């Protein structure tokens, strides 16, 4: 019991620290691309703490308050159901009691809890953002899930630990053995991270900050915290599934960072798509590749 508690706290802390460092790096990276100095790598930490330390928070009713809390609880649950390391008793959380499909659905708890809170505020711009978010979710989930299904089919299990264990050497990484699945998943993955070509949901100015329009003060702090944790959780999941997992924490950070670098580079390159363009894109290019992958995997092999 104590082990699980410590383990869970460690996972959450790791997620949080990695989260704000990665995000800080992202801002640095973007600034350098734009020939600026950019903020310090700790900037996201400052921002987050500043919000958490705001002395006033406005709420629009109980659901508005509980929405971010639900999201945060969902994020923590998600983190705990993802195994961070393989062949280790540490950083496992309760991942033995879950599986990939559960994790995919837990990833959605965030957007839905958010939607509830935003709806509760009654701000039309917020709901507009939520609509965009749910629409994007509809677009990205199909190729995303299909790509994951290819992996599940390949290993005939939905357990992340088993998939991770099966990739014992670099030649057995799913990135190598099933590159099509990775190609299918990469762009939806960026979208699920609210990364750049697909970040129309919270587009400032256009929809007045979108879903977060009414959030301020400490609730916004909670939302930022969970966002950073989820960023890392998704990266770790991808590392587990495609990069063979990690045996120790440094390997984990390295692999996650490599993956993050890839998505950052893509995000920094492409301009924003409109909602319907996003969905249409997901239903043509990644889904097309996914169908190709299915044909190759199921019929030809």
């Amino acid at each position, binding site marked *: 019991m104590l082990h699980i508690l410590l383990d869970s706290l460690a996972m959450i802390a790791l997620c949080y620290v990695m989260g704000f460092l990665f995000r800080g790096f992202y*801002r640095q990276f973007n*600034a350098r691309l*734009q*020939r*600026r*100095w*950019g*903020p*310090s790598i700790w*900037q996201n930490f*400052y*921002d987050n*703490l*500043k919000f958490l*330390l*705001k*002395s*006033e*928070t*406005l*709420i629009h009713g109980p659901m508005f308050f509980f929405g971010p809390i639900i999201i945060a609880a969902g994020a923590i649950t998600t983190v705990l159901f993802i195994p961070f390391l393989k062949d280790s008793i540490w950083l496992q959380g309760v991942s033995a009691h879950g599986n990939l499909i559960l994790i995919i659905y837990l990833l959605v708890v965030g957007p839905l809890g958010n939607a509830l809170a935003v709806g509760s505020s009654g701000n039309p711009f917020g709901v507009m953002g939520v609509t965009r978010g749910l629409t994007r979710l509809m677009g990205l989930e199909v190729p995303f899930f299909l790509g994951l299904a290819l992996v599940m089919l390949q290993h005939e299990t939905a357990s992340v630990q088993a998939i991770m264990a099966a990739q014992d050497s670099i030649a057995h990484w799913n990135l190598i053995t099933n590159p099509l699945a990775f190609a299918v998943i990469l762009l939806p993955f960026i979208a699920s991270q609210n990364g750049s070509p697909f970040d129309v949901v919270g587009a*400032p*100015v256009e929809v*007045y*900050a979108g879903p*977060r*329009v*009414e*959030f*301020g*003060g400490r609730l*916004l702090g909670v939302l930022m915290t969970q966002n950073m944790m989820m960023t890392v959780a998704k990266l770790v999941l991808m590392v587990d599934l495609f990069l063979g997992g990690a045996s120790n924490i440094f390997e984990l950070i390295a692999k996650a960072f490599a993956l993050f670098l890839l998505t950052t580079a893509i995000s920094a390159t492409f301009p924003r798509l409109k909602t319907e363009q996003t969905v249409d894109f997901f239903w043509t290019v990644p889904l097309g590749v996914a169908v190709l992958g299915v044909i190759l995997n199921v019929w030809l092999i």
Partner: protein
Amino acid sequence: MYHKSACEGFQCEQQLLESSLSQADAGLGVVERLVGWLRQRSLFVLAYGTGCGAIEMRPLMTSRFDAERFGIIGAATPRQADVLVISGYLAIKTLKRVIRSYEQMQEPKYVIALGSCTINGGMYWDSYNTIKCLDHYIPVDMYVNGCMPRPESLIEGFSALQARIGRGEPSGYQRYRDNIDWYKANQRRVLGDNMPPAYTYDWYSGGAV
């Protein structure tokens, strides 16, 4: 109507200023210092482009001036913002929106006023529909004067504000809270029937949740 009856007009402002300055040396604990330090590292700006000063604010985010390196970044909505920047002269019509935006920001919150117009009306000193002294309507923490101030001076203003926040000095929002009746009376004087509805500010006088 006035919160304090001992003074009138300019005297009141003088008293207010003095009383706030007198608190500046109040002893600060470690926690307050840390909090102040964290707050000054991260300022989300709600830029209100009321006048010509708006044009000077855009370069602030560009590569040349790069305000982000000070932790200063734009916020889309007042709920997320820490600093309200009033850029230039303020028409009466705009004042209502500015007040609304200011009241929607979550404390602690700060106001930076750009240009001479916000101090004394500037070149619009005799205009019938601009306000002359912003500080009568919302509490200004930092004036950046000039017509218009360049981005460099704007950054200078921000740094000064950051220093004040870091020192934990009391800021305008506390003044606004304490003297809400006075501010409202001033606002009502220029806005007349055009005041925002009572629910937008009556909580200042009441308790919190």
